[in-house]
């Protein structure tokens, strides 16, 4: 058995492969409830994580010809990412558990030797109270770093802090 190849940083020049249309997961004509997922990514100095990117993946709605389930947004000079996608529904967890609606997040950039993984949940979802991941995080303040808040109709904000005060919970997957 050969071990999985090592990760290396995506570096500051990944924009050579950037296609801005990837930030809109509805571009192939998906029908249903569209949402915006946006926020700022901040480093340990409180400075914008300006040369990275945010990728998202969701298991629901299921990927299809009209919905890739995957998107990528540049993080702009102010640290902001901005994605348009479909509102996910609940998906099965392990055993008999149900997972609250969520979007998987992958953060890449200069200074990250391996991508960081986290999730966006949605404030106000009843299933948040029993979600296996959320309930496995004991401190409410830490748990809250995974919950996007509803800023405006259809607009969900999740700020991501890489290091220090109010640091986002990152996942070992």
């Amino acid at each position: 058995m050969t071990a999985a190849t090592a990760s290396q940083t995506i570096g500051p020049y990944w924009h050579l492969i950037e296609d801005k249309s990837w930030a809109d997961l509805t571009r192939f004509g998906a029908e249903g409830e569209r949402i915006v997922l946006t926020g700022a990514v901040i480093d340990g100095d409180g400075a914008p994580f300006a040369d990275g990117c945010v990728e998202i993946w969701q298991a629901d709605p299921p990927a299809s010809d009209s919905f890739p389930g995957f998107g990528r947004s540049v993080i702009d000079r102010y640290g902001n990412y901005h994605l348009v996608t479909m509102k996910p529904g609940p998906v099965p967890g392990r055993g008999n558990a149900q997972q609250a609606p969520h979007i998987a997040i992958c953060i890449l950039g200069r200074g990250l030797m391996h991508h960081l993984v986290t999730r966006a949940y949605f404030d106000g979802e009843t299933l948040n109270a029993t979600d296996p991941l959320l309930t496995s995080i004991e401190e409410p303040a830490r748990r809250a770093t995974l919950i996007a808040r509803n800023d405006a109709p259809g607009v969900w904000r999740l700020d991501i802090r890489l290091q220090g005060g109010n640091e986002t919970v990152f996942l070992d997957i």
Partner: protein
Amino acid sequence: MSDPIPFRPYAAGTQPSLDSPDYLGTRKRHPRHSLHKLPHTITETIGPAFSPALFPPMADMTTIDGRRALGERIIVAGRITDEDGRPVPNTMVEIWQANATGRYHHPADQHDAPLDPNFSGAGRVFTDADGRYKVLTIRPGAYPWPNHKNAWRPSHIHFSFFGPAFATRLVTQMYFPGDPLLAFDPIYNAVLDQAARQQLVSVFDFDITQPDYALGFRFDVVLRGRGATPMEH
């Protein structure tokens, strides 16, 4: 409903630490809390499928509108497998790199080396049914960077892989055999396991080399394999 089969954890020492202090960029960008263990669910065990119809391949990076880029033409080819040696078929591979002079076609790169109007430095290919991929490009140059005094990145090509699941995502860099700069590069050396580091160095290969046309380098890549048992402990 049965649980999805999880992917195996990374083998110890084979992945770089997020806190790699010799690479200054990691200092304010690595989390201080340890990562929170998440047993794999359907979210992690399935992933995006990209089709060449919607994501057109760009397997020849050496010409733009028929005009040829400067530098040493090379073929980079290899096979993507999982940890059990099974091929990873029909998966998208993204590629980007500096030009022959060591400069990226990117506004943030102000290295005083010439840009090549005939080289954008971006490519995209898909593996075949046997996990094989091939791209035609230009050998990238080394370039200085501001990490420490007289810091130079070894020649490298960036690669992005997706594989079958969110859990198999991999972004890495391919290096060239015999490069004297490797010993001094904090990004390459952030991988502590010697064998894992060596896996990032391509191999010169006469079977890939095309006579009278281009040298060939083999870069085989391994993505995580599925474990036989759930990894909850």
